[in-house]
């Protein structure tokens, strides 16, 4: 096994992941895409749910493969004393540790910050929890939609005047993972200058609240409590998603009076652009329901994609609302290499969702998600320098199962 230097800004950085499901693995994925060597610690005895739930072969689990490309996998049984010792040896050779186990679990394993610091004084220890590491409600647990509800986002999403409906159930984990990845990099910069590692405590709920900070500021400044507001926007009208032909939808956002006039001219009625009800943003906000009705009547018979093209040509922000088919068929995403090929552990080509950026001297992204224990020999042999015989003994003893 060769070493894993792929270029990119984080080449030479080693990350150990003790993570589960989506948020922790997403943090690791971001770092791997930036060039870090990211090693997932796994074992037969505690396989991640994304490797097992509804899946016949844990080495070909679609959800796991979607979130863990370009990582390494090493098997260590964390329920064994020897396993913990082995893991500590690996951490001593690493820069960043990311964990999103249940609250308190990392301490019970004997891998709390103080214990890890004893073997690796300058480790950057990233602990991810729903509510953060301590505090009166830190005992509470939840999944992504719970973070969204607690963080103040769910209450803002829904149709006007109705109970909140919340974000799509998938929202939150990946955002949380990105916040953790950013914080880890800030600590890495500090370590280079000072030699100091540190403990980073990341809260999923606070990550969510950060995404609506301006809304919270409205309460701080004016005491106003925001609620479900459909597709409304204080500075734009029209600002909505409108029905088109074939059951499709088009989003239209008008940010200036000039854009409104352009839209009105395409809509057709000669007097519309000068209609006093809609001339300024204030007029359009005051008569927004009528405006939305007029637009809906007009869009209803149109093809969403071609209408968006026509509006774009006139300088109006518009886009078809993309279904899963549209997303996969989006030529722009393919053209930019957002969807890109990698080689999976069986040597087959597989398409993955790549990074959301292009950068000069980017890290190479070549590999799919690892098979369980695919990199045992590299991790135990090359990094830790264990002999073949010792690796064999650990395997037979069930430490690296």
């Amino acid at each position, binding site marked *: 096994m060769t070493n894993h230097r792929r270029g990119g800004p984080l080449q030479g950085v080693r990350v150990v992941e003790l993570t589960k499901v989506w948020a922790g693995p997403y943090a690791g994925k971001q770092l791997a895409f930036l060039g870090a060597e990211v090693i997932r610690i796994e074992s037969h005895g505690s396989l991640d749910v994304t490797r097992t739930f509804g899946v016949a072969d844990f080495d070909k689990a679609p959800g796991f493969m979607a979130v863990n490309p370009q990582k390494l996998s090493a098997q260590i049984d964390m329920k064994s004393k020897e396993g913990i010792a082995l893991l500590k040896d690996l951490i001593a050779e690493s820069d960043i540790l990311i964990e999103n186990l249940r609250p308190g679990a990392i301490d019970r394993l004997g891998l709390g910050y103080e214990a890890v610091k004893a073997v690796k004084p300058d480790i950057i220890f990233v602990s991810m929890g729903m509510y953060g590491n301590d505090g009166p409600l830190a005992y509470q647990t939840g999944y992504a939609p719970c973070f969204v509800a607690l963080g103040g986002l769910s209450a803002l999403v829904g149709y006007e005047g109705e109970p909140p*409906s919340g974000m799509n159930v998938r929202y939150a984990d990946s955002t949380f993972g990105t916040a953790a990845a*950013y914080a880890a990099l*800030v600590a890495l910069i500090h370590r280079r200058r000072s030699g100091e590692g540190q403990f980073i405590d990341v809260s999923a709920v606070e990550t969510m609240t950060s995404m609506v900070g301006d809304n919270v500021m409205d309460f701080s400044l004016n005491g106003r409590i925001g609620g479900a507001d459909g597709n409304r926007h204080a500075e734009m009208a029209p600002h909505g998603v409108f029905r088109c032909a074939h059951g499709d939808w088009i989003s239209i956002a008008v940010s200036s009076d000039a854009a409104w006039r352009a839209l009105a001219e395409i809509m057709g009625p000669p007097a519309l652009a000068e209609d006093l009800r809609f001339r300024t943003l204030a007029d359009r906000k005051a008569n927004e329901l009528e405006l939305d009705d007029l637009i809906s009547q007009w869009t209803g018979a149109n093809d969403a994609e071609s209408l968006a093209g026509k509006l774009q040509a006139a300088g109006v922000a518009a886009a078809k609302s993309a279904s899963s088919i549209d997303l996969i068929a989006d030529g*722009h995403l393919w053209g930019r290499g957002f969807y890109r090929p990698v080689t999976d552990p069986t040597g087959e080509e597989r398409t993955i969702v790549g*990074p959301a950026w292009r950068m000069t001297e980017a890290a190479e992204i070549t590999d799919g998600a690892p098979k369980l224990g695919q990199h045992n020999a590299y991790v135990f042999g090359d990094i830790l320098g264990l002999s073949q015989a010792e690796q064999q003994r650990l395997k037979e003893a069930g430490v690296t199962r």
Partner: protein
Amino acid sequence: MSALSHFRIVELSEGVAGEYCGKLLADFGAEVVKIERPGSGSPTRNMGPFLDDDAGPERSGLFAYLNTNKRSVAIDLESPSGLEMLSRLLAHADAVIDDHAPGWLNTLGLDLADIERRYPKLVLCAITPFGQSAPAERAHAEDLTVIQSSGWGYHTPSGADPDRPPLKGAGRFLASYEAGMEAAMCVAASLYGREETGRGRAIDISKQEVMASRVDYVLGQMVAGDMDVDISRRRFDLGGPAGIFACRQGYVYVWMSAPAHWKAVRELLGDPEWMKAFPDNWLEKGLTPDRIAECRHYLGEWLKTQDKNEAAAAAQTLGLTLVAVNDAKDLRDCAQFKHRAFFAEVEHPVLGRALYPTTPYKLSRTPARIERPAPLLGQHSADVFADPAGASA
């Protein structure tokens, strides 16, 4: 000691995405010099919420949130003297952040494609709706159209009614905040990498891709051919009885997917008659529309009589992932947020004292801090003009 205090960052951004990126860096001590148009300043100064709903360039809560710890310099980038000042600032900058349309940077002589020729050490990060290579038919974009182009819009809310419009998600700027955070991560990585190689980097961030990558768990399966795609508005959903329920006042969110959750619900409700017909493992192996509807109905009836925070505390003790749906006031009053000091009181010369949300990560050695409120327009012009190298900063 702040982790990023040795970096000088020039912020050309005039939107939420780039300003949020700059804030995330500035809150860790980076010296962020924000270049603003003389007279009107950043467009976000003219976006609400405004103190007392009274608009004005120093009255925006949005601008105040996005620009903590920064310095504001008024420079007219359309004048030769303005460009001269910019180039003096760039000579001493470690990174530049921008969020104008593709091509705008070129008008300043900052070409992403060959930035290393003129500024070999500079990290240049540009955030745009669809990336630098956006096709003409996507030239005009706002966060709404980006969200709708990313898959999140079409599939929001979960359990969508196909006859009602897809939604924009929470607030006005979700795609911008997400892209701003992604940008801060890429800039931090690049500043780190630069210390190794001495070379800067050009970074091209697409908001559409940031949003689409946030659903990689689903989209990655689709693009690999492991999951079907179709026109269903519920294609991202998980099904089951989870969801938002009304309480005596406000709402809770209940997640249920495992037999242990069901056991906890039974205990919480005192094991009423209707539950006895449900198999213990129905959440895993017996999800039927009838059972889901019945469970939601009865659980909803019970929750209507409950206090949301008391119900959450009782449920969590039993192992049920039931939480309050918090609004802005709930957040301010939240004991956990108080304990973690998530809100910080900041004093601003016009807005006065107010609580600001801070950042979601606590670093033990180099915590993020709000040392200064958002700057007044051009507040630091004289200082920066006198000392473009930032030697005295």
